């Protein structure tokens, strides 16, 4: 069929082609090795000079012999200030010795034996060794035959030293002549003492030094030295004889050790001093100072040092809290986080790890892609991309589909391979939950929060387009991305829907596996979206984790525990906060018949089983955490749950212990969690189970007397000890922490109106809530309705939820206060509530707690807002898409 024209791979021909590969260049050995003097041809003059030298040597030798014959005689020699250089003369002496013993005509041999000698028994100290080196290099130049060229090379640098050395040697000659015997040892050590030798004639030496410099270049001087040196050698020999070399070495060693010890002490003192230098700035200083980033960085280092060994480095009058406070402020400043998030991170990670984490969060993670196994294999894809100029590598041993891209000459999101669906651009961390889910073929799987379809398509490709994949996302704008990606990647077994995830159980249940990649604050992907650092607050976190809990419960409800292959739920977030991870799982463990199972991922940090005051279920160590600094992927959390029963435990309990549940509900209302608990029954309305029923039962009951309430409280406390799941309840209240402060402020505002209730102050809130419920559905529902209305009205407002809290509390006001305060924390809050009730003051006065809690109340109001937003967005987008959007995309693609 068709003509075949091979355009793709024509071998290159013609003149441009290199017929033969050029061999590696060959160099002469000499060009790298230092020139040896032998190789050089001597010029005429040089020859003459060398002859002269020979002659001179002969003469000198003769002289020497004469001298020896005479015996030792002190020579009147000029002395020098021999700073530290006493060892060198010896060195020279040794050399000369060698020369004397060996043939003088073979100067090249000299350096080698010398080096042996220098390390040998005479035992120079290390310092001296350092000194010796330049001398060794020079040695050849001193030999009679050696070239003046070499000297010239070194001239600039070494002339002086040489001169010194020579002078020293002369001086030593004199000394040695005068002082015999053990003097030698002292000279060795004289490095440290400095100028021991030179004391005698400092002044006269200077002149000599100058004059000596001039001689340096010629070889004659060397010869002159030679005589004197040889004399010295004899002296040395004498000295050596007096003490064994080992003895001398020992003495030296001892001295050195003592010195080192002292140095170490000094250093230690110094460092201690320096550390002491860091002092916590007082508040005034703080206010005045304008700090540069470097200063802040330094201070971070200092403080973390102090915190690393607090006992040692602290200032006595400053508490750890102050240090930590300062550190937090500095970290916030330096890395531009907001205080809230930094506090969370500091709570979570130890100090050293925290610094690494923060640093790692500043750096972008490597770009990774996932091979679409439906259309290609990883090796083929890698080959194709490499041909396009992409530099990539397999991602790791743990995945068979991941590739990491180092750099690329083409936009990776627009290559023909990408468009043909051979790969998906996806972070390394988003492979993990799907691997944990381990989908099987022919299963029915739900991906609850699917957009933009990366994990969903991964699931489908593992299932090989068998079974059914339900990809759901509540955001209609992002749905398009799912559909586009699925079609591009060739996934044909998917149903894409746009439902509220929390209501999915009303639509369909009985899934074999459910993947819930829950919406989160995104604290793990700071490197991708730095705005997280500053924008997230307590409220956001609360909103997220309540939504997450709702979604997780729904996900569990959607799963079929009786599935032959599955019954698994995988929960993942790209957040590192325990509130959104362990806490949520812990909640689900309590509320549903699920248990944690190993994720099947062989790396990652174990999840927390305890975090600050919270104690989670011990099996939470089966979950996995991932950090940017340890795994070089986004901060991530993966938990795998197995559902072992389709029944919902809460309902059973409810039937068994009606009262206990009632208490629970009350407690729930009293606490911040109210909102969420309230929302839950609504969700479950379809199933007619759980708290909703409970509400109904309560409806007819009259309000409790104080005694009754007390009894219930007792029971509740008892049950807490019995009931493991209760442990969980405490953390729920935790977010209340910030409360006490704010209410106090309000108190100040309203101080006139404060009417202290006689009974325990915290009680009222509980009492209020109790009242609320006992009164029956009516008041509660009313308040709900009102809140709804209000919310609708205030959609635009920052805190639509505020009124809800107020109303509910307002209902409770009339109720008698409950005695026996449990937590002092709650007091101020309660007061404030009381105050606010009768007044029906405006939102501004409402305690902050309520603001926090309101969003929790229900998913609904939030959702309504969202819907509105969505609509407006859609409208906006319609306009956009007609005009700019399309063009923009085109451009992007054309790049």
């Amino acid at each position, binding site marked *: 069929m068709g003509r*075949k024209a091979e355009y793709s791979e024509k071998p290159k021909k013609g003149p441009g082609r290199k017929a033969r590969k050029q061999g590696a260049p060959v160099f002469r050995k000499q060009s790298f090795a230092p020139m040896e003097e032998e190789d050089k041809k001597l010029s005429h003059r040089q020859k003459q000079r060398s002859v002269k030298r020979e002659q001179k040597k002969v003469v000198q030798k003769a002289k020497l012999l004469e001298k020896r014959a005479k015996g030792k005689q002190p020579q009147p020699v000029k002395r020098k200030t021999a700073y530290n250089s006493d060892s060198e003369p010896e060195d020279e002496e040794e050399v000369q010795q060698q020369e004397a013993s060996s043939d003088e005509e073979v100067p090249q041999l000299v350096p080698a034996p010398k080096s042996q000698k220098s390390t040998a028994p005479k035992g120079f100290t290390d310092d001296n060794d350092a000194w010796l080196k330049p001398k060794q290099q020079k040695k050849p130049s001193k030999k009679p035959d050696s070239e003046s060229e070499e000297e010239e090379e070194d001239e600039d640098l070494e002339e002086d030293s040489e001169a010194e050395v020579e002078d020293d040697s002369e001086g030593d000659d004199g000394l040695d002549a005068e002082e015999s015997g053990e003097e030698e040892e002292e000279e060795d050590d004289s490095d440290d003492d400095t100028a021991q030798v030179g004391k005698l004639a400092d002044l006269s030496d200077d002149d000599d030094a100058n004059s000596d410099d001039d001689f340096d270049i010629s070889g004659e001087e060397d010869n002159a030295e030679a005589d004197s040196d040889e004399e010295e050698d004899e002296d040395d020999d004498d000295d050596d004889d007096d003490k064994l070399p080992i003895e001398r070495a020992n003495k030296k060693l001892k001295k050195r050790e003592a010195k080192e010890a002292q140095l170490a002490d000094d250093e230690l003192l110094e460092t201690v001093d320096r550390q002491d230098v860091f002092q916590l700035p007082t508040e005034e200083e703080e206010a005045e100072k304008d700090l540069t980033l470097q200063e802040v960085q330094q201070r971070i280092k200092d403080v973390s040092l102090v915190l690393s060994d607090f006992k040692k480095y602290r200032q006595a009058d400053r508490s750890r809290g102050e240090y930590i406070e300062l550190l937090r402020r500095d970290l916030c400043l330096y890395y531009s986080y907001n205080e809230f998030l930094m506090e969370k991170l500091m709570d979570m990670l130890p100090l050293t790890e925290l610094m690494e984490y923060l640093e790692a969060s500043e750096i972008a993670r490597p770009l990774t892609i996932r091979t679409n196994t439906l259309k290609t294999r990883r090796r083929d894809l890698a080959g194709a991309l490499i041909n396009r100029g992409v530099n990539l590598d397999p991602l790791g041993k743990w995945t068979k589909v991941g590739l990491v891209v180092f750099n690329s000459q083409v936009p990776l999101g627009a290559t023909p391979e990408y*468009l043909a669906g051979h790969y998906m651009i996806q972070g390394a961390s988003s492979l993990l939950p799907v691997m944990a889910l381990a989908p099987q073929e022919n299963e029915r799987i739900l991906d609850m929060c699917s957009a933009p379809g990366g994990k969903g398509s991964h699931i489908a490709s593992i299932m090989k387009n068998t079974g059914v994949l339900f990809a759901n996302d509540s955001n209609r704008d992002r749905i398009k991305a799912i559909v586009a990606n699925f079609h591009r990647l060739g996934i044909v077994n998917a*149903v894409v*829907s746009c439902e509220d995830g929390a209501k999915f159980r009303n639509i*369909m249940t009985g899934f074999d596996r459910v993947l819930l990649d829950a919406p989160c604050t995104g604290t793990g992907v700071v490197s991708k979206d730095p705005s997280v650092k500053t924008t997230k607050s307590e409220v956001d976190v609360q909103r997220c984790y309540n939504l997450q809990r709702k979604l997780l419960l729904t996900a569990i409800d959607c799963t079929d525990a009786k599935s032959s292959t599955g019954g698994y739920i995988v929960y993942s977030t790209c957040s590192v906060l325990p509130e959104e991870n362990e806490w949520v799982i812990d909640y689900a463990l309590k509320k549903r018949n699920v248990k944690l199972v190993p994720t099947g991922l062989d790396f990652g940090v174990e999840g927390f089983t305890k975090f600050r005051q919270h104690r989670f279920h011990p099996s939470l160590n089966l979950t996995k955490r991932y950090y940017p600094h340890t795994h070089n992927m986004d901060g991530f959390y993966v938990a795998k749950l197995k559902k072992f029963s389709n029944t919902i435990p809460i309902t059973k309990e409810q039937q068994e212990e009606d009262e206990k549940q009632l208490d629970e509900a009350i407690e729930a209302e009293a606490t911040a969690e109210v909102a969420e608990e309230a929302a839950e029954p609504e969700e479950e309305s379809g199933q007619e189970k759980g708290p909703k029923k409970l509400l109904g039962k309560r409806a007819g009951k009259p309000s409790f007397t104080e005694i009754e309430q007390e009894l219930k409280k007792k029971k509740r406390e008892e049950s807490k000890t019995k009931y493991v799941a209760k442990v969980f309840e405490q953390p729920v209240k935790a977010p209340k922490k910030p409360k006490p402060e704010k209410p106090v402020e309000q108190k100040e505002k309203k101080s006139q109106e404060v009417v202290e209730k006689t009974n325990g102050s915290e009680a009222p809130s509980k009492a209020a809530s109790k009242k609320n419920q006992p009164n029956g559905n009516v008041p509660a529902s009313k308040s709900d309705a009102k809140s709804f209305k209000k919310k609708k009205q205030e959609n635009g407002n920052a805190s639509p939820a505020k009124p809800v809290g107020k109303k509910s509390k307002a209902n409770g006001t009339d109720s008698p206060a409950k005695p026996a305060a449990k937590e002092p924390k709650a007091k101020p809050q309660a007061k404030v509530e009381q105050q606010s009730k009768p007044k029906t003051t405006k939102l501004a006065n409402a305690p902050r707690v309520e603001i926090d809690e309101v969003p929790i109340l229900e998913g609904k109001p939030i959702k309504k807002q969202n819907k509105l937003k969505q609509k407006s967005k859609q409208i906006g987008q319609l306009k956009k898409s007609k005009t700019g959007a*399309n063009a923009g995309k085109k451009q992007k693609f054309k790049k």
Partner: protein
Amino acid sequence: MKRLTDERAKILFEHLSKYIGTNVKQLIDRPDGTYCFREHRDRVYYVSERILKLSECFGYKQLVCVGTCFGKFSKTNKLKFHITALYYLAPYAQYKVWVKPSFEQQFLYGNHIPKTGLGRITENAGQYQGVVVYSMNDLPLGFGVLARSTTDCKTADPMTTVCFHQSDIGEYIRAEDTLF
């Protein structure tokens, strides 16, 4: 999800046969279960009956996509295939066109194929025959309609268009908003 009306079904199959000829049969009689065409918001979806049943749980508005979208009916009842149909068109295509590597990118930006960009072509293809466009290493890039028959192509000027562009995989990026 509703069945296609007879009229629309007829249009659809005519359109399909332009590209894959008698292979339409293979789309309908499949060994791995019953597959069917369904219409949802004027778009035509091709999906296994098994999945179709499951998708009935979702409301009209909530259901976004089931299986593979083939194309969209205009208000005047004309069918336009989307690039998403390529998944099924490519393997069954009877007439194919290969473009040179140098022209690949151009085609992906939505340009018609001139004779210079033509690498290979199926023989015996008549004018206005629907064809699937491949790259030289057999990567399906899109589909179009021949402007010249194969024989005419041989004699045509280098710059004359031999294949009209209808759809290409670049649309996944270019037209994501309008496609889905």
